[in-house]
């Protein structure tokens, strides 16, 4: 079914002319739509010179990183505004980007520039349950699946790409797909991801922090 879908998507992509868009449907191993999956297309011709947005924001709302998963192009500076009335201490020990922003509130004291591709796991030194992910990719063509498992990479120039999929709880990495994009194209991925286990989060009204 998915292969059948893939082949149709390939045909549709081949039909697009200049600027096209790529719709990717992501499902988990059981066939259910998978949210928070990242798809990104690497031009077959090599790293793209095209540059997307150079800044991003990851908020802390109600003691959670929002969004849970963020995709940025290499070199993007990310701000971590604190929307909570309490302090947060954002850190990452990930090899792609190790940093920490010590206790702060309100506006992010500084922006962090993610200059290496890779996965950066975000945590809060105060709130153990807070977790967030930043996938740093060296392409401007990427998207994140919504709750229906749908991800759309818009304004994708026609051409050949290597399409990658990633999920923070994937049990194994997913093989990239080679696709040719012409006009509107679509693709699909199946990612075997562990379900998101909500970590215990003490209710606010009980813990006056």
């Amino acid at each position: 079914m998915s292969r059948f879908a893939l082949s149709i998507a390939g045909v549709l992509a081949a039909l697009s002319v200049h600027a096209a868009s790529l719709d990717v449907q992501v499902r988990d191993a059981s066939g259910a739509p998978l949210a928070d999956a990242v798809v990104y297309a690497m031009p077959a011709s090599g790293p793209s010179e095209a540059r997307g947005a150079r800044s991003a924001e990851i908020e802390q709302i109600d003691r959670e990183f929002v969004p849970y998963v963020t995709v940025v192009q290499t070199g993007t500076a990310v701000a971590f505004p604190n929307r909570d009335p309490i302090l947060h201490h954002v850190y990452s020990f990930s090899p792609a980007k190790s940093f920490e922003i010590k206790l702060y509130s309100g506006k992010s004291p500084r922006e962090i520039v993610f200059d290496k591709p890779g996965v950066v796991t975000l945590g809060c030194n105060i709130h153990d349950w807070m977790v967030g992910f930043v996938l740093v990719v060296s392409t401007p063509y990427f998207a994140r699946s919504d709750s229906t498992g749908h991800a759309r990479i818009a304004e994708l120039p026609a051409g050949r790409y290597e399409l990658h999929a990633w999920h923070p709880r994937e049990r194994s990495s997913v093989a990239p797909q080679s696709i040719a994009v012409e006009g509107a194209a679509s693709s699909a991925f199946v990612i075997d991801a562990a379900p998101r286990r909500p970590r215990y989060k003490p209710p606010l009204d009980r813990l006056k922090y």
Partner: protein
Amino acid sequence: MARAPRDRNNPGMASLGTRLVLFFVALVVLVQGIGAILVIRSNGEVAREATDQALEQGERVFQRLLEQDRRRLEQSASLVSADYAFRQAIGTNDIGTIESVLRNHGARAGADLMTLASLDGVVRADTMEVSRVGHPFRFPELLDAARDSGKASSIATVDGRLYQVVVVPVLAPEPIAYVSAAFEVNDALARAFGQLTGLAVSFVEADRGGQWRVEASTLEPGLRSQLGPALAAAGGTARVGEIGLGGEAYETRLSTLATPGPSRVMAVLQRPVAEALAPFRRITATYFALTLAGLALLVAGTLVIARGITRPVRRLADAASRVQEGDYRRHVDVQRADEIGQLAESFNHMLDGIVSREAQILRLAYEDPLTGLPNRAMFQEQLAKAVDAARAEDGHAAVLLFDMDRFKAINDTMGHPVGDQVLRDVAARVRAALAGRETLARLGGDEFAVLLAPGGDERGARAAASRILAALEAPVAVEGQAMDIAASIGIALFPGHGDDAPSLMRAADVAMYAAKRAKSGLALYDPRADERRREHLTLLGELKRAVEAGELVLHYQPKISIADGAVEGVEALVRWRHPVRGSVPPAEFIGFAEQAGYIGRITRWVIEEAVAQCGRWQRAGLELRTSANISARDLRHGDGLVDFVRGCLEREQVPAGMLRLEITESALMDDPKSAQSALARLRELGVTTSIDDYGTGYSSLAYIKQLAVNELKIDRAFVSGMEADQRNAAIVRSTIELGHNLGLAVVAEGVETDHELGQLRRFGCDFAQGYHFARPMEAAAFEAWLLRRRAEAVPGSVGA
């Protein structure tokens, strides 16, 4: 009697008491024993249950402790894993910092070993062995478990030591590594657990070969080495069981510890059975002590009760022994209201009964029921005592023996009731006549005896005898008739006439017969009479010979008709011409022959000879009616006598009327019935009969009247006493009248004087006999006398 003392001294009390004690002791021992078995068994069960419970509780506590330790380790590991600097050090792979943090936290938590492993299971830091770094983590399964559930723990061996191991992931905030904290499970830990659980705690590990290795234990080293083999022997799988260690039983429980791997580490929780049993041992000891105390009380109480029973019983037994020995007088002194009291009362009643019955038996044994006098047995007993006493004191004793001269006649003619009345009368009279110190006894029949002691010398005896005779002088009144009951008394004295009671009795008997013969009323024992008696014995042989050898001869005494002086007949009297002694008077051998049962032979000889003489005289022309004497004994065999008489008469061709048979009145009275029928037969034969010695036999008129007799012969005693005593004359006269009234001829015997003859003639007496006319003479002499008389007395000079 022989066993009586033993019975008394070793009384039934002991055995009864012992039996009671044994019974109750056995009962209590049985009941208490069953109780003890139940108690001990249930104690054991309870102890075991308690032990099981203690072990179960201990196990729960133990597991809880282990859990707490695990939590402590987890916390420690979690703490270190959450340390920002630590995570930063991991993130930056700062090994030095990592190790120092691990050591720091390990020391803080008391962990013995801290290890950091990468997500792919490689050791990156180890507080104990640096060489482990770069090698795989020992318990990869713990890592997996920790990743999945946030933490994992196990008890496992590391380098031969047992550890409790906890693994937690290091979150940043996603897992970036694993921290493992472990502490050694050693003796100190076992001791700590042991103190908290109150059990012996050991940690053992089973290897693949089924061997059990003790990793840590509260047990002493000596016992510790036995635990492994003991567990192996117990199968190792048993959760609960009893194991012997060092000679002591341990209730054992195996508690499996969480081990994800193949190694089987278990906790061995033990409790000495003795410890659980200890309180029950105390209870059991108390139980036995109480039982023993109860037994002691029981024995004491039973003995007291038994004594309460046996003491009066012993008293009863003693009383019974006294009774056995003949003492009935003392009552048993047991005053109780219970059954024993009733028994004692019954016993006393029984004693009274025995006393009264014994008195009655004694009376029956020693008393003559008719007269109430002592009987022969008692008399002999008393005589023997008196003789012994007299012998001992040089005293005297006398036996007076007497019977009634004519009692038999009274008894036979008047009947026994009358005879009994006479005897009672006699007894009463004699008793009244005696002073009271004497013993009067009825020996049997009409025979009485008197014992005189003291005062039993000759003078006293004679005086007593005289009093008795005087008392019996007066006739007894029997059925309106006065009857004379003259007695003959024989006296025997001690010392002198016998050495003992039997010889004295015999001597008195001899004397009594002597008195009878002599008609003297009383006679003192005369040893010569006894001699005569002995002579009689030789006499018997001689008498038999005499009959055959013709030593007996008949003498004839004429019987004279008083009216005309004619010789009416003769009385044939037997004489014994003894070749040595000469002529023996009939008194000396007739009585003897009667006693010896030989009189019949003599009587026949006499009759035969008399008939023969009568026949000779008849043939010679002398018509002499011939009389022969027969005894009482001859009448008893009346038929034989009659036949014999007939034979003699026929042989000699003598008419029966020529023979007269004389029988004494006393002989008639001896056996009146035989006499009556014999006399009747003789009369039928034609033989005339005569009552001899009339007046001595106490015959009644009624009796005489019935007898077929022709003649009465008045006893010489009356005839010869006529001159001296007018009363005798009166008797003679009345007898003559009596005889005539009965149609009998009357003959007076012993006529010696003219005066007597004259009186007899006046009285109307028919015939007379006596020396006045002639002595008894041999036939030839008689014939001569008769011829001379006939020649002299033609006119019949009998008269005047």
